């Protein structure tokens, strides 16, 4: 290898794993790698975390109710449906596709659950009602996925038809009842019941311990195979931050009068862990990223591209139905508006605001949760300031535009630095 060749090739790669270059990387090298990555447009979760802090400070300054324990608990329940539906949307966005039907699919999920639980002598158990709603969501998603892959209708158009069609189904299912109240305590409890203070502490501490144990095992495995690890100090820092955030959430929620940590919080965390496992640790997840990165490369690698796509739309439909059940639980009823309003736009905006790219191939499950926190905070905070729905929509629109601009600009940054 000549001298020139060497120089030409030794471009220091910037990126999250820059620290992995040196087996003896420290927190300092890692931080420098992250800063390099920021410059080339790889932003990670940084803008969103700054955004959440800024939003919290702003609303708290305008109305001290915002960070009160009671409102904090409300915020968790408000975040949940958008986060859950948004996690399904992450899969679709990773493919570089879109699903516009998820709003009314969530409506279908909520309405099926409510109708099956109407105590008219034919009611089923809550487990059966929920399973039926989730099954319906999955089938809807798979059918739309098949129309997209087998007939070749663009996903935008298939799911636009879905948007209209499933709205119609919601209206037909509700019929002239107008509103269907949910009396089942289990379903209502998902968003409206709270863990006891002790149980909340136990589950959060347990989660942190499990996370720490998994990290330890991973580090040991890599060390055994002679592979470099992230700096230990960074791993400890991450565990510390997780433990700290968890402790604050539990302490604040527990201090709310007669309330506490909602069950739906546990559901959110569990879904985030399971789906992150799917995206990051399974073959299917890897193939989702591959199809989103390059369909042709994925196909040549022998990946069944159509199968991956259909499964992804199935996941989006299932998650939408689950989000609809949570929403129905929070309101303890469904009506002819089920699945309408801001649900669709908020649920797509959530992962995008959280940093998942609209261009496919880049994104995380966690982005849906972070983005949903932003959206629910704005909605909730502006509500406390007695602003009208009009203002809420405009502010949320601006946040979405800002997030998409960040995505588009960071893509440009990657192109400019040859990392497209």
């Amino acid at each position, binding site marked *: *290898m*000549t001298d*020139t*060749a*060497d120089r*030409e*090739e*030794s*471009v*220091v*790669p*910037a*990126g999250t*794993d*820059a620290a*992995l*270059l040196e087996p003896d990387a420290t927190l300092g090298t890692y931080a420098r790698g992250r800063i390099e990555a920021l410059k080339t447009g790889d932003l990670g979760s940084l803008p969103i975390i700054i955004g959440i802090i800024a939003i919290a400070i702003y609303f708290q300054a305008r109305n001290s109710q915002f960070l009160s324990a009671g409102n904090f608990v409300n915020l968790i329940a408000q975040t949940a449906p958008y986060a859950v539906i948004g996690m399904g949307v992450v899969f679709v966005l990773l493919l570089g596709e879109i699903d516009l039907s998820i709003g009314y699919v969530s409506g279908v999920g909520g309405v099926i659950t409510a109708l099956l639980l109407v105590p008219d002598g034919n009611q089923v158990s809550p487990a059966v009602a929920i399973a039926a709603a989730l099954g319906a969501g999955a089938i809807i998603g798979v059918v739309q996925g098949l129309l997209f892959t087998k007939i070749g209708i663009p996903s935008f158009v298939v799911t636009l038809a879905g948007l209209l069609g499933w709205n119609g189904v919601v209206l037909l299912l509700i019929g002239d009842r107008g509103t269907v109240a949910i009396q089942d305590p289990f379903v209502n409890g998902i968003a409206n019941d709270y863990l006891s203070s002790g149980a909340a502490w136990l589950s959060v501490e347990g989660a942190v311990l499990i996370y720490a144990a998994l990290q330890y095992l991973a580090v040991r*495995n*890599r060390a*055994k*195979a*002679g*592979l470099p690890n992230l700096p230990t100090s960074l791993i400890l820092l991450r565990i510390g931050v997780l433990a700290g955030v968890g402790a604050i959430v539990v302490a604040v929620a527990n201090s709310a009068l007669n309330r506490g940590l909602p069950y739906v919080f546990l559901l959110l965390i569990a879904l985030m862990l399971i789906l992150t496992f799917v995206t990051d*640790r*399974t*073959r299917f997840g*890897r*193939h989702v*990223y*591959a199809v*989103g*990165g*390059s369909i*042709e*490369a*994925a196909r*040549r*690698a*022998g*990946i069944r591209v159509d199968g991956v796509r259909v499964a992804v739309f199935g996941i989006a439909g299932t998650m939408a139905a689950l989000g609809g059940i949570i929403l129905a639980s929070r309101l303890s009823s469904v009506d002819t508006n089920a699945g309408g309003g801001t649900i669709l736009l908020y649920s797509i905006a959530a992962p995008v605001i959280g940093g998942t790219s609209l261009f496919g*191939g*880049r994104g995380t499950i966690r982005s849906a949760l972070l983005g949903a926190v932003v959206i629910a905070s704005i909605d909730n905070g502006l509500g406390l300031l007695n602003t009208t729905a009009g203002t809420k929509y405009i502010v949320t629109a601006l946040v979405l535009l800002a997030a998409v601009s960040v995505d588009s600009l960071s893509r440009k940054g*990657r192109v400019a630095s*040859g*990392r*497209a």
Partner: protein
Amino acid sequence: MSQEPLLELKGVTKTFGAVNALTEVDFSVREGEVMALVGDNGAGKSTLIKSIAGIHPIDAGTIAFAGTRVNIHGPKDAAKLGIEVVYQDLALCDNLDVVQNMYLGREAMSSFRRLDETTMERTARETLASLAVTTIRSVRQPVAALSGGQRQSVAVAKAVMWNSKLVILDEPTAALGVAQTRQVLDLVKRLGQTGLAVVLISHNLHDIFEVADRITVLRLGRSVAEVSRKGSTQQEVVQLITAGSIASVPGQTEATA
């Protein structure tokens, strides 16, 4: 070098509607040898390797692999025989890292349907090291961050990692600068030395005369000659490619040619 060809095509014909892309083409490659495939634009080079890789079914003729006749109906069949193709482009996912790309579609798994990242990363590193690809500093960086030469090296390493017997490279240096071309050519040479059969498509005769053992010339879909590098000159090959219409090597002056 064994004398029995590893891959032998006889009388292969392929038409696309009215276009005769390949007409009774004979082609063979042995283990431990680099066979170059040359010809003008549209001569049928890519079509020929796509037939070998199972992407286009052939209309007539036979393909024999390791002495037995085979029917290759798709990329999976080709991979099963140990045939790997490195395409000039579109072969890697930019958003995935080096390890993820090298194992794409053939991921190593451990318990609970988990990806076995440790094994994949270790093997990927070993493969790159065995091919003396030393310029890639982290196998966990996205392929988008690599230079053209590094990407091509990853694509080649991906191809040889699977106990492949025959590696086909379609214009692997077409988009590369001088230093990176050097890097990939060295890699191609090493593949031949490790006992693999290698097919190299290139328009650059200089490169071909550096790494190839034999050269097959295609013209208008026909195999018009098969020469050994040692027994011929670049000028002769240019004449074969162009049917004598150009008598000197393009880009070289009369004095040096």
